């Protein structure tokens, strides 16, 4: 075993690269023509997007009857997908805001990318409640504006809280992301020789001139934004869980939902970020910026949140038994052994069992293995939302209205399309903007900060 010197902070960027090289590596994808691999990848995602587009177009034209939603299960796949995608977004804010407040320097390499994923995931998620209302072009009524019916929205409804939470989350994530991009736009503006790009970067940089009089306020704003984004990200999934917890349906009406949903969101989000980063660092040669250590740290968070989710599953069962409420007990037995037992056990094996493998350092640091585990986690988390939404609705208090829910091809088409949209946006992002924050990475390279010898 090698001994580690704990008095020295281990650098998060490997090999102390010259600062100029960091510029070159990060801006390379923006300055080179996309290669074959890129075209192959984007043609796959665009095909998926097209499938989703067709499924959506049909749903708009013929109506939501094309979906599997039936009478007790009115929420169906759209709400499952909504909760899934909002959850994916949470990792980005966690990395960029919460880890920033905790001064975790390893976040610098992945923060920008994770924030981008947040924005795209929230955009994707936003589609689902809109299409679920059936006529999305009338969604303007969700906003309290003075209208000819002189009616206002219902401020006591969790569904309205959702509207505010998700749109605030999108706006704040976007502004956080943009503020981070301003100095990078300035660096690119000074680098590029292309006239059109120069105009675009100049507009984006707003005339940033790397002045320390600006850096001072800039760092302050970053801190403030991180401080606001932290409670915000917790509130968003809490409010999403209120959509369930505020109702009186057995299996939904529990106080454990907010923390359990937040843990689940971070869990699936980190799995998704880890999956995508494994490709990014390989394709763009960022191995020294997004180090193996970073991936290992992410796996540790997956392990932690995965255990929290497993604890929540166990706790739900315990409380159902301990409360002595019959419908509650029935619901949980029905989840594990009823008609949706298959979904429940997929969820448990993917979410509770597979991340436990991350206790072993060897597995935490072997890329193919952790990739597979993270894929399992994402599958499991999708099924978790499926289990929550569908099992409770399909068998509620009134046995005469029970029904089995089966998603249709159109449902799956829309799900595939959502993945297509998310990955298409990501791919475009990698080719148009620096996916790693140039300024932030430079600031944490060894030797980039003064030694304070004479102070």
């Amino acid at each position, binding site marked *: 075993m090698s001994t580690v010197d704990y008095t020295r902070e281990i650098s998060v960027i490997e090999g102390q690269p010259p600062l100029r090289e960091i510029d070159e590596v990060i801006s390379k994808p923006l300055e080179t023509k996309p290669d074959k691999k890129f075209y192959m990848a984007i043609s796959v995602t665009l095909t998926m997007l097209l499938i989703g587009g067709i499924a959506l177009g049909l749903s708009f034209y013929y109506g939501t009857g094309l979906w599997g939603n039936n009478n007790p299960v009115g929420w169906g796949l759209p709400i499952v997908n909504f909760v899934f995608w909002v959850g994916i977004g949470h990792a980005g804010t966690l990395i960029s805001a919460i880890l920033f407040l905790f001064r975790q320097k390893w976040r610098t390499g992945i923060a920008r990318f994770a924030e981008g994923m947040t924005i795209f995931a929230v955009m994707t998620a936003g589609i689902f409640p809109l299409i679920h209302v059936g006529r999305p072009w009338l969604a303007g009524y969700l906003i309290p504006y003075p209208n000819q019916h002189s009616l206002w929205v219902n401020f006591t409804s969790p569904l309205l809280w959702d509207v505010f939470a998700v749109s*605030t989350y999108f706006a704040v994530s976007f502004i956080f992301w943009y503020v981070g991009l301003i*100095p990078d736009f300035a660096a690119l503006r000074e680098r590029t020789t292309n006239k059109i790009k120069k105009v675009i970067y100049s507009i984006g940089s707003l005339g940033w*001139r790397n002045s320390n009089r600006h850096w001072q306020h800039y760092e302050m704003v970053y801190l403030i934004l991180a401080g606001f984004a932290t409670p915000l990200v917790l*509130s968003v999934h809490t409010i999403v869980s209120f959509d369930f917890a505020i109702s009186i349906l057995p299996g939904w009406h529990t106080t454990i939902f907010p923390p359990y949903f937040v843990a689940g969101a971070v869990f699936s989000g980190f799995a998704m970020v880890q999956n995508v980063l494994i490709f990014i660092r390989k394709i763009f040669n960022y191995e020294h910026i997004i180090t193996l250590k970073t991936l290992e740290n992410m796996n540790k968070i997956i392990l932690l949140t995965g255990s929290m989710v497993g604890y929540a599953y166990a706790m739900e069962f315990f409380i159902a038994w301990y409360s002595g409420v019959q419908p509650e007990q029935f619901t949980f037995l029905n989840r594990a052994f009823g008609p949706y037992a298959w979904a429940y056990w997929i969820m448990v094996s993917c979410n509770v069992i597979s991340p436990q493998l991350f206790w072993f350092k060897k597995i935490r640091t072997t890329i193919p293995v952790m990739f597979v585990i993270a894929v399992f986690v994402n599958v499991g988390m999708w099924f978790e939302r499926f289990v929550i939404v569908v099992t409770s609705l399909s068998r509620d208090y009134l046995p005469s209205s029970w029904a089995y829910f089966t998603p249709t091809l159109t449902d799956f088409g829309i799900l595939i399309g959502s993945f297509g949209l998310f990955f298409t946006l990501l791919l475009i992002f990698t080719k148009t903007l620096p996916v790693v924050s140039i300024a932030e990475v430079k600031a944490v390279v060894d030797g980039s900060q*003064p030694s304070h010898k004479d102070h």
Partner: protein
Amino acid sequence: MTDKKLYSLTAVFDKPDDIINAAEKVSDSGYTKYDINTPYPVHGLDGAMKLPPSKLGYSALVLGLSGTFAAVLMIYFMSVYDYPIVIGGKPFFALPAFVPIMFEITVLAASIGTVLTMLFFFFKFPNNSHPLLETDYMKLVSVDKYGVSIQADDPKFNEDEISKLYNDLGASKILPVYWDLEEVLYEHKIVEPKFLGMLALTAIIVSGTVYFSLNKLMFMEPFSWMMEQEKLSPQQKSEFFSDGYSMRPPVEGAIARGDLPYQFADKPEMAAKILSNPLVSSEENLLLGKTKYNIYCSPCHGYFGEGDSRLRGQFPNPPSLHSQKLRDWTDGRIYHVIEVGQNVMPAYNTQMTNNEKWATILYIRALQRSLNAKESDL
């Protein structure tokens, strides 16, 4: 190159330690209009430049609190003052249920407001015509060098003195930065064809899109408020039924519930003899009769049955309902008139239920009695 206008004299340093040192010396020498440019925030520079701490925290506080306040005010106005509705038995001002939205609006106002304050108020951005941009100096300090720039309008500015100071500090390069004369002398005019053209184009596109989407798009499939539906509406031609009617007549011989066909259509005497009023003149029945009489009969017969029509001669005035003839008629005979009409008077068999017809007759009897009361009535 004498006609160039100097903006500042800059120096470039290689090491972060050097720039801290330089910042200290420059600020100690009494220069005020100077700046330090670094590719990333260098720790300790704020202290070396003796900058006061950023005041952005206060603006975040103020903006956040105004957000909270605005949210409470908005929710109060909408769901307590303007249109209160009881939902789930909660009070109109259900504060706990308002907390999530108050929180979201607070965060939204504070974060967006603070960033905008910083960019537009503190930094006076956008400022893409700043002379430092796209100079050799900026190309260095945006990558891996650290620079000092002392502006020419500093009261203590002296080129030779500053060059000496820079050399003493160990600058690797000293670069003068000039104003871009083309930009300095450029006059901004409002009445510029390009600008006006842009303005007109934006106006046309925006108003066109709004007009199209509100007046045209919203009435096209599938946005058309479900106006087009695959069902037959009344009066529509049907391809399915052989007679072409979409409205189906009832099967031959079918009668509506409780509606026996009227047997005395052309036999008023029979009706007068056989039909009798099933209702007693209770207060309830008289009130019903009054309402129905006022609705159906009073426009022609007048509120008190005196034949004083309100139709102003557009329809022949009916005779008084107080005539001896009518007082002698049985209830069944009047019923017959309501059921089938009489000469120009239309029938009321479809508008009124049987009960209402009999109640109306009771009311007419009461009207008649009011004008010809017997002594015993007094």
